[in-house]
């Protein structure tokens, strides 16, 4: 694959970097990154990955754009209200960079479709808003051996970590299972400062690109917590847990399953 003059111009600031160069830019152009959720975290990740020239971006989301999304989901604009998020997302990605091919999955990730979808990608980015889905993504990436960039936001707090299955601590190594429904507030119930999605989502995109390029040290074995009130990052070391039900020494989870109802405990959900 050779770049056109226009592409060399477009990606010149990447190509200038010794860690990227033409070779690295080609790796980016050949890469396939899956965004589960085209919302708060998925929006900034999608836009920066599109700008970076990622070959294929997969978007999974079953929802349509709601007016309440626009405070943080910058992939969607006011005229998109009522339209499928995957479609709105695809248009923005390709308006920013027509080099990018976008695969749309207007559905929810489930134990039934996860392997089929995830199998086609190099890296998976978690941008979902509920615990059953976060655990499902973690489990699916473990079984499919796909690197996962996990992210979460709530109120003024954000968290991001990179999980390389069988090498670094997984989500279940720390959080064994979803919390009982209703115990932990969702953004829908508790609110979130919109820009936090941008901070955490762009770190997720950074981690994905680093993995594609093989540059630097991934955010594995560490939870990076961000407190927007203090503008403070804190790193918490996490080790692989030998008792982990998924990736431990005597796993009890041996196949993919839907770990709870994603909408249990939510006060309301937008009608899809």
């Amino acid at each position, binding site marked *: 694959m050779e770049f056109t003059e226009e592409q060399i111009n477009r990606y010149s600031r990447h190509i200038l970097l010794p860690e990227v160069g033409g070779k690295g830019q080609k790796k980016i152009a050949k890469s396939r990154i899956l965004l589960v*959720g085209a*919302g*708060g*975290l*998925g929006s900034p990740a999608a836009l920066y990955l599109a700008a970076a020239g990622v070959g294929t971006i997969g978007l999974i989301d079953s*929802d349509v754009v709601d007016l309440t*999304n626009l405070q943080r*989901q910058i992939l969607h604009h006011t005229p998109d209200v009522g339209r499928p998020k995957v479609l709105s997302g695809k248009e923005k990605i390709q308006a920013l960079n027509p080099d990018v091919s976008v695969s749309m999955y207007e559905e929810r990730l489930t134990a039934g479709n996860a392997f089929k979808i995830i199998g086609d990608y190099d890296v998976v980015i*978690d*941008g*979902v*808003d*509920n*615990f059953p889905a*976060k655990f499902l993504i973690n489990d699916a990436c473990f079984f499919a051996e796909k690197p996962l960039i996990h*992210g*979460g*936001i*709530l109120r003024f*707090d*954000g*968290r991001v970590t990179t999980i390389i299955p069988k090498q670094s601590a997984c989500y279940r*190594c*720390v*959080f*064994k299972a979803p*919390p*009982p429904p209703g*115990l*932990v507030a*969702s*953004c829908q119930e508790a609110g*979130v400062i919109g820009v936090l*999605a941008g901070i955490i989502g762009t770190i997720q995109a950074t981690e994905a690109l680093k993995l594609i390029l093989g540059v630097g040290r991934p955010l594995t074995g560490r*939870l990076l917590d961000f407190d927007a009130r203090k503008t403070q990052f*804190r790193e*918490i*070391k*996490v*080790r692989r*847990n030998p*008792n982990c039900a998924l990736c431990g020494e005597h796993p009890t989870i041996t196949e993919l399953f839907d770990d709870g109802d994603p909408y249990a405990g939510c006060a309301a959900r937008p009608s899809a």
Partner: protein
Amino acid sequence: MQVKINGKPEEFQSGTVLDLLKAKNIEPQMVAVEVNDKVLERDDLATTHLNEGDQVEFLFYMGGGR
């Protein structure tokens, strides 16, 4: 004695991790607890005694994304 809770030194009389959770009014089901970089099983919260200088992390669930 002093223990470090989420990076901040705090006074704690003595007792188990569960005692500390109770003192802080934290529902055990809402957090994962790490002591000195090791995640505790829920059953071990009541039997794990804290020592001077222990580093305790309360990791709250953070589930948002959209």
